[in-house]
């Protein structure tokens, strides 16, 4: 027990406390932290008049919203379609988790190659059917779309696997009752399956949302934030502020903003699980008393 607490204090809690302190400083990487000047809340307030920060915040929100909603729809849809007792389901699941297991750097690399203007498979295919090439990574609209597509490829399986697990643990009795009452396939999905899956779906959605804010490497390799700032998501902006612009204080302030957003999401998830647990408890007690 003691070693675990020691390691986590030294390498997690201390850094996070350090970062909160650093966000009040005007600090560049060549200085020791003691030499940096204290600037109070300036790092925080100046960010709100910084156009490129606002831009990257917007990009991050757009990216997260699109990615999570599309992945939820596709993932849950596929789970509903494939929820059957087929042989080889475990092989299918194994194949689906591959994109999540390989390094994000490699995922970025693969997609950068496929989006390549001349040798990439997408443009080659388009050209061979006589269509124009698409500027996948060099146009600000397309580049955002491209990273969204890549993320969907990588993470939809996560939602698929979770919702499939949820589907297969649904009470058989409810579904049977619905079938006996003559509910059609759609009615079963909308009135029985989805409501019963809802707790898992909400948690999945929040987990995915948290992860969507953490994406960095895939985008770094594919576009490095460009063209312009069109794909510069927040975590990429933090990394660049720290290493290229050498403003550690500002980067720390940005990190704190990001952390705040993620903290709210996490707390929302925690509160939700607690509420649904206590509701289930109450229901159970009510049934027992009855």
């Amino acid at each position, binding site marked *: 027990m003691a070693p675990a607490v020691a*390691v986590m204090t030294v*390498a997690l809690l201390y850094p996070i406390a350090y970062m909160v302190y650093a966000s009040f400083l005007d600090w560049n990487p060549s200085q020791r932290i003691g030499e940096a000047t204290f600037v109070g809340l300036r790092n925080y307030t100046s960010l709100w008049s910084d156009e490129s920060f606002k831009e990257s915040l917007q990009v991050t929100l757009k990216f997260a919203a699109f990615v999570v909603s599309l992945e939820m729809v596709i993932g849950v849809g596929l789970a509903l379609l*494939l929820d059957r007792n087929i042989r080889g389901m475990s092989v299918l699941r194994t194949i689906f988790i591959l994109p999540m*297991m390989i390094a994000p750097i490699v995922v970025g690399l693969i997609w950068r190659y496929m989006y390549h203007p001349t040798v990439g498979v997408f443009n080659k295919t388009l050209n061979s059917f006589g269509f124009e090439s698409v500027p996948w990574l060099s146009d600000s609209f397309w580049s955002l779309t491209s990273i969204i597509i890549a993320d969907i490829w990588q993470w939809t399986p996560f939602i698929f696997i*979770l919702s499939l697990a949820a589907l297969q643990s649904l009470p058989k009795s409810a579904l049977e009752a619905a079938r006996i009452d003559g509910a059609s396939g759609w009615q079963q999905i909308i009135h029985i399956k989805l409501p019963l899956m809802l707790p898992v779906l909400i948690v999945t959605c929040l*987990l995915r949302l948290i992860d969507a804010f953490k994406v*960095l490497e895939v985008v770094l390799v594919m576009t490095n934030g460009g063209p312009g700032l069109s794909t510069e998501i927040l*975590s990429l902006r*933090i*990394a660049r502020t720290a290493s290229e612009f050498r403003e550690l204080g500002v980067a720390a302030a940005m990190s704190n903003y990001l952390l705040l957003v993620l903290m709210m999401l996490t707390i929302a998830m925690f509160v939700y699980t607690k509420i649904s647990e206590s509701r289930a408890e109450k229901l159970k007690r009510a049934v027992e008393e009855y």
Partner: protein
Amino acid sequence: MSQAALTTERRNPAFYALVVALIVMALGPIVMMISTSLKLNVDVMGETSSLLFMPTVANYETVLCDVLWYTPERVEYCDPTFGRALGNSLIIALASTAITLIIGTMAAYALVRFRFMGRGTVSMTSLMMRMVPPAVLLVPVFGIWTFDFCVGESCAAGTYWGIVLVYVAMNLPFVIWILQSFIVQVPIQLEEAARVDGANPFQVFFLVVLPLIKPGLAAAAIFTFRIAWNEFLLANALLDRNTRTVPVTIVNSLTEYDIDWGVIMATGSLLAIPPIIFTFVASKQIITGMTAGAVKG
């Protein structure tokens, strides 16, 4: 579901077409990477169809030139960066995994058997940690590792143990949490029986508990290894020329123009191979680890 319904569903061709399409979509990009890594640059840039080409290991020879037991003919100049990075990656990932597992098992066992904290606290910390993006750790870890954690002249930045410390800390909450859920299932009577038979606490732990939680250990090991093996951002900030890992060298070799796709895809494939092997060997444990957070709290 009735048997009749099952058989009609099995015969539905659209269903199978969908499954096949999904498999192609999931595997296609990975297969493409591997096939590109077996092509010469001429074939990559060529206009002709990408399916017909002479596979070659030349790219792998270029990448691995200084760790090969023979001197490849085609390589004129041997760049040792990648061979070294591969060694570094292996050392760092294996060390992180081993240390995390040792510390994590001890902590999880103590948590369950001696009831330090409630399960709620542990799952809360594990969740909180899942939330912290590596980008957020970048500034403080860089600052502390370069200036604070120093023994005499040498600092934690640039060393193996510096980065291993970060990875261990990043993974511990999750590892403790998942192991704990396995240890809870070990019946205490089993341990008591062993103790009655004269086993000391260490024997109980190593000979009774550890063998029973093997699946949990496997899941924890794979997750830790994967994170340490794949991580880029912190490795990029902390490590120097001699201790760089593979992801860092890949990003460094990506330039705006003139990318030698064959070589870089060979590097990428080598980086992807260990996780792919794990996936096929232990997909069940991985899925357990992945779904643990959402399906049961």
